């Protein structure tokens, strides 16, 4: 009832020049708020939700592209270097969006539940962590005992090559794992992939002996970044420093650079995903998801199609892993836990499995929930604890509130709730996947 009323209202405003005006107003309002209140979470939420306006309102594609580009390439970098936390949030959203897009191919398109997806992310990350650090020369030292003056194996700029190597190696890992297990029925596959995820994490934790490949739980650091040309910083400063208000340092510029790289990777991933989806491959994946028996009777080789889905999904995670290792200059097994896999799954399910805009939205919502809403809430509770405030009716002093009640630490609870509620009430997600409508041209005369 209510929702249909809102839909009508939305349809009414969502047409003609009004839509353009609303988009513009939203972007400008968001920018203004963040610019004047650089510490406010709310202001930042207003700004990033303008991507949703951009998606939902009807406007010319060129206009949308233009506004999107201004948002991503001018506004976000500027407000991002003014408050580096925003840039971090956006960077994480981008990383998770890429992961969610990769998992979406496996879960959303091919219908294979992969519960160990971050294992491939770990493969990419450890790949660059090993080759882009001193780890090669640490092989024979126990963790923490190596001399500090060891050389690096490869120059930092090998990073660019490793983006590709990451794609290939993670894809191969996907095939290697997939070969034995993709014959299994769906729910067994879920458990086996979960197991594989754990295996990778345990290996990362313990392969510090007999040869020290991973440096164990302490993780590998420092990992190199690609070199930053001096002109990039100068160039940014000449153009943007009036807007930013101060010249930025090379460190900030690195953050910007990785943000831009993440954007590029996402755009490539979206591009690849859409094209694969709209081809015999994508159709075969969906057919396999819908009905394996019917699909195989149609001549679709099940195992090969599932392997392809696994490999493509894995390779997306691989490239993001390489990017992550370089941008953080440090990685440890902790970043690749089962919870991370479920986190990415939650993004896919929340947004809408099989739906590209859906899973990006899912990644954005879950990441902001984690980084901003829950943490903001935790901070707020802390402030209350330090105050003398009292809850009126029940006469409860905030001071006495247990420090265990720290929403930021209860991500699992929220992941769990999201998964259950979505399955019961909206299994297709916030933005359900839509099948493309085909306008078939009239028959050509031969």
């Amino acid at each position, binding site marked *: 009832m209510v929702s249909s009323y809102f839909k009508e209202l939305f349809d009414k405003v969502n047409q003609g020049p009004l839509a353009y005006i609303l988009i513009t107003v939203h972007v400008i309002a968001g920018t203004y708020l963040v610019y004047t209140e650089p510490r406010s979470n709310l202001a930042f939420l207003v700004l990033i939700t303008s991507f949703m306006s951009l998606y939902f309102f009807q406007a010319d594609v060129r206009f949308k592209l233009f506004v999107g580009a201004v948002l991503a390439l001018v506004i976000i970098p500027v407000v991002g270097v003014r408050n580096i936390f925003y840039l971090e949030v956006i960077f994480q959203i981008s990383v998770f969006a890429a992961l969610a897009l990769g998992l979406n191919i496996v879960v959303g398109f091919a219908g294979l539940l992969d519960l160990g997806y971050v294992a491939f992310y770990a493969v990419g990350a450890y790949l660059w962590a090993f080759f882009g650090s001193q780890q090669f020369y640490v092989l024979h030292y126990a963790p923490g005992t190596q001399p500090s003056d060891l050389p690096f194996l490869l120059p930092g700029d090998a990073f660019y090559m490793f983006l590709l190597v990451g794609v290939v190696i993670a894809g191969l890992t996907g095939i290697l794992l997939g070969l034995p297990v993709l*014959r299994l029925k769906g729910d067994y596959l879920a458990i086996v992939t979960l197991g594989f995820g754990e295996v990778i994490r345990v290996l990362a934790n313990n392969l510090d002996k007999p040869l020290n490949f991973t440096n164990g739980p302490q993780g590998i650091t420092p990992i190199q970044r690609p070199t930053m040309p001096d002109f990039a910083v100068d160039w940014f400063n000449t153009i943007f420093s009036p807007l930013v208000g101060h010249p930025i340092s090379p460190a900030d510029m690195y953050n910007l650079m990785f943000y831009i790289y993440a954007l590029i990777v996402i755009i490539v991933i979206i591009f690849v995903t859409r094209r694969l989806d709209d081809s015999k491959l994508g159709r075969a994946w969906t057919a396999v998801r819908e009905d394996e028996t019917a699909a195989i009777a149609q001549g679709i080789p099940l195992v090969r199609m599932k392997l392809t889905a696994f490999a493509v999904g894995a390779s997306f995670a691989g490239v993001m892993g390489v990017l992550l290792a370089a941008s953080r200059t440090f990685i440890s097994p902790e970043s690749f836990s089962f919870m991370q896999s479920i986190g990415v799954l939650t993004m896919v*399910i929340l947004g809408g499995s099989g739906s590209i805009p859906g899973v990006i939205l899912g990644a954005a919502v879950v990441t902001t929930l984690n980084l901003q809403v829950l943490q903001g809430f935790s901070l707020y509770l802390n402030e209350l604890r330090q105050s003398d405030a009292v809850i009126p009716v029940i006469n409860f002093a905030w001071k006495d509130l247990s420090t*265990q009640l720290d929403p930021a630490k209860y991500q699992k609870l929220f992941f769990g709730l999201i998964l259950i509620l979505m399955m019961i009430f909206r299994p297709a997600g916030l933005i359900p996947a839509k099948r493309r409508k085909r306008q078939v041209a009239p028959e050509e005369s031969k």
Partner: protein
Amino acid sequence: MKRFLRYINVYELIRPIGQLLTFSVGSAALMSAIVVALALVLDQTAVGVHLMDKLNVTVFNYTLSNLPQVVIDGLTIGFVYAAIALGYTMVYGVLQFINFAHSEIFAVGAFVGVELLIFLQSAGVLAGASLFMAYAYLLLAIIMGMLAAGGLAVAVERIAYRPLRGASRLVPLISAIGVSFLLQDVIRLVEGLTTGQFNRIMPTFGNFDERIIFGKLSMGASKLVLGISIKSIIVIVVAVLMLVCLNYLVNATRVGKAIRAVAQDMPTASLMGINVNRIISLTFLVGGLLGGAAGVLYALKFTRIDPFVGFFPGLKAFTAAVLGGIGNMTGALLGGIILGMLETFAGSYMGIFTMGAAGSEYKDIFAFGILILVLIFRPQGLMGKNVGQKA
């Protein structure tokens, strides 16, 4: 009395005990033979030399002197796995669905039992309790853990699975993963808010930590102590009792017949007037009861629990269920025992046998290796029938 006895199906009471005995002795003998043979071989290699340098024993002697304890430990944990695995297998048998949240049902059972005992301890009753009362309290803890876990399992099915029946297979599975995550944090939250911490320790009371020593054998330089801790005996006895009861329920009662009917063919069972929803609830209840008891037993054996305590035992029990043949109750027993044995043997000997390159830190992922091998080479499990897919 005589008439009453006539109604008891004695065969169904004895049969599972016989099975358990066969499985235990068989797997213990097999595993022991393998490690002893390996030890003999390794004594001729660098591994033997290395151990001689370090501890001044041969691999053979080392292996043998640890063997009794390893077998007992393997059995104990194997029975715990079997009890959990039965929960997975029964639900799978009826609904073809992996109840991913079963591991948290287990954890809740453990927490309820342990919290009860901690409460009794702080009330001062545990410290001075007589031996009889100590056992009574332990029994009470087990029963409370069972009831809490059983009730929770039924509630979870009602709320998070039943509305999804008939949806595609992945939908209830994803919901179950959600429940599992939710419960982990709910346990953490509740424990955190009420007790300020979420790592809980099983109180020490009674004579559970003592060991009964049967005798000593001297083996050249080293001594072989034949003994068993009372804890282990309790775990094994309680687990065996439960398994026998469950077997009786399923194989020798009317309700059990209904459960088997629903597992075989739900629509037909429903046409025959069986209330399918009641049977499903009952299945979750029974699985939950077993899981809850297993939780308390686990806490008794390993002492320390935390909200994530269910994760690995749950996965291993699932592996056990698959290993035995999912949907098959005898298979779950066999799978649990084998897995417990394999894991304990691997955890105890791998470090020595590989000169420390890979030791017990790989114990937890050992089960997955087995799971993958089973699924590749014998997906129907050791005792399952091969059922072709229907078209």
